[in-house]
């Protein structure tokens, strides 16, 4: 796709919504007014001191932030470096997703919206959305792939208990991609009173930028906490898993322009990148347009989006956010493909060494630690994006 867009000099989104060659707003006209309304207002709303006060108050009193930065001593010993875990798993609802939904529900209120639609993969974003809708008294509709509804059943029950309507997405691969299509269609059909709370740094501009900024609280806290514990704000590595890439974007955000900090992204290789059952987007994908942005995505030569596979529903997505596509292309980000088996093993290891059962998604980030050649002096921050309660039925299949 040729010389599409102007050259970006940093990792800041451009006026037109591009990170280097990636991003933009490839949306049907039916969505244009909604997306344009958001684009024109989001920066100003986010900069408003009253908005920020409300956002941070909820993060503190409702979500339980700041989340701890925990020195994982036994894991550090095992890996041979100083490993800190950024404990997003301790957020209310059990994952980082709620940082974004708190921000977006406040945004929706300021835009005068009455109803919320969302997509979900692992169900964590769906639960986080249902939660803030209950908190604010807004109607909530969540689309979820029917396969995901089966493998993440506890989260379906949680959403329903929180008052959300969960609608199965039965088209295509019946996972996150299809849930996203359905949520977009719902938004097209209900453009005036509905806000779409997208769950990752994907979608048309300004979503990737807005979501990254809400999630950037992760690295904002990490810097302070690391200074306190290590006497320096910058680690040698930040490691995070990438589905769409929101926890990674948040964990990387305040380190993007510090080249001394290596940014490591763990993608889901599924059964292996060469098996045809994989979700390792940068390893298998090419530039293209998915869900409103130009990014890297898994597709056929004919430009049909490929159905991904991962053991982890939250990483089972054929694209990545445009910021990550840019980090990959520019070499600023280091991408690793982690198989189901590596992830499960890392999940068990953390459970036994530190007494923390990680989400299968986060287990991919932990597994990436074993692939890095680190020395004893290296300081590493792993974004532990969520807890593993939702994944117990999958994990227990591997118990012997």
């Amino acid at each position, binding site marked *: 796709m040729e010389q*599409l867009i102007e050259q970006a000099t940093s990792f800041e989104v451009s006026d*037109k919504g591009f990170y280097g060659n990636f991003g933009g707003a490839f949306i049907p*006209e039916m969505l244009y007014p909604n997306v344009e309304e958001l684009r024109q207002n989001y920066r100003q709303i986010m900069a408003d001191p009253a908005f920020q006060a409300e956002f941070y108050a909820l993060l503190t009193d409702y979500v339980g932030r700041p989340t701890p930065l925990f020195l994982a001593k036994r894991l550090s010993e095992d890996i041979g470096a100083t490993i800190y875990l950024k404990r997003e798993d301790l957020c209310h609802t059990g994952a980082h997703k709620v940082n974004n939904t708190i921000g977006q529900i406040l945004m929706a209120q300021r835009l005068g919206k009455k109803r919320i639609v969302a997509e979900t993969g692992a169900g964590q974003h769906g639960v986080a959305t249902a939660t803030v809708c209950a908190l604010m008294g807004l109607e909530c509709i969540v689309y979820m792939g029917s396969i995901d509804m089966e493998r993440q059943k506890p989260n379906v029950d949680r959403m329903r208990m929180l008052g959300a309507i969960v609608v199965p997405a039965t088209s*295509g691969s019946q996972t996150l991609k299809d849930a996203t299509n359905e949520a977009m269609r719902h938004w097209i*059909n209900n453009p005036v009173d509905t806000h779409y709370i997208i769950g990752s740094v994907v979608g048309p501009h300004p979503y990737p930028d807005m979501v990254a900024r809400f999630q950037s609280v992760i690295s904002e806290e990490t810097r302070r906490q690391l200074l306190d514990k290590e006497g320096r704000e910058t680690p040698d590595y930040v490691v995070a898993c990438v589905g769409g890439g929101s926890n990674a974007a948040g964990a990387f955000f305040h380190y993007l322009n510090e080249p001394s900090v290596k940014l490591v992204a763990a993608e889901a290789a599924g059964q292996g990148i060469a098996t045809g059952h994989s979700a390792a987007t940068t390893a298998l994908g090419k530039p293209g347009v998915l869900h409103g942005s130009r990014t890297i995505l898994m597709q056929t*030569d*004919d430009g049909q989006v490929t159905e991904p596979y991962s053991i982890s529903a939250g990483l089972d997505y054929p694209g990545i956010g445009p910021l990550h596509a840019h980090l990959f292309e520019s070499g600023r980000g280091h991408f690793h493909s982690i198989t189901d088996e590596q992830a499960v093993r890392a999940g068990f290891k953390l459970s036994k060494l530190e007494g923390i059962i990680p989400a299968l998604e986060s287990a991919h980030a932990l597994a990436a630690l074993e692939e890095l050649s680190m020395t004893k002096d290296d300081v590493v921050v792993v974004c532990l994006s969520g807890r593993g309660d939702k994944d117990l039925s999958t994990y227990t299949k591997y118990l012997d």
Partner: protein
Amino acid sequence: MTQELLTQNRINDLFAQKSERLLNVYFTAGFPNLGDTGTVLRGLQQAGVDLVEIGMPYSDPVADGETIQQSNMQALDNGMTLKLLFEQLAGCRDERSGDPVTVPILLMGYINPVLQFGVEAFCQKCREVGVDGVILPDLPLDLYLSEYAATFRQYGILNVFLITPQTAESRIRLIDSETEGFIYMVSSASITGSVKGISDTMRAYFERIQAMNLKNPRLIGFGINNPETFETACQYANGAIVGSAFIRHLQQEGTSAESIRAFVQTIRA
């Protein structure tokens, strides 16, 4: 825009000759069977439709409802590709064949397969096989104008843009001044195949656009599925576009020339 293009494009020629009650029918390439593209195209021409819109099937058609989604999936399962579509259309304009296709053809689809094909290669192929215009709902207007309009113009391919009840007047004016062929008026905020009937709100929107005196002709689409809705659309615009209703008809009644003629007659009754 070159003078040459204005005289050579079948869409512009059509509107120069006829400005009322135009019927544009959509169908998905390679549906219901892989080899049906040419059959349906000729069937529609014989039935006397004014324009034909051929859907390029895509795995993730976000602006489409269930009927068109399923026709896309079925076509892909049949093995439909953009390359194959151009092969199926090759020679259809050839007068020596005895049964040349003369009706204006638009390709409708999503941007990703076109980007993978290559925008210039795509335009070149369109020109070569006799495609007159395209509708790519997820290609943004600003990007089209800044990156691709010159290529489309070079090959004489018109790019038709959508407007909806929520589209701002300034944006409609921009689309009207920067594009040609016709303007695709989406009847209400919706995906395809989900609109039921024509409401007063829709009429008010049709009237508002009618009063804008746009330079381009207008066709109304989404929710046009019977003689009543077709008639109403024709009161406010130059004609209408039928999609999901025709896909359902093909599924139930088949692709024979009689079946297609019966459908077109019903709509125009």
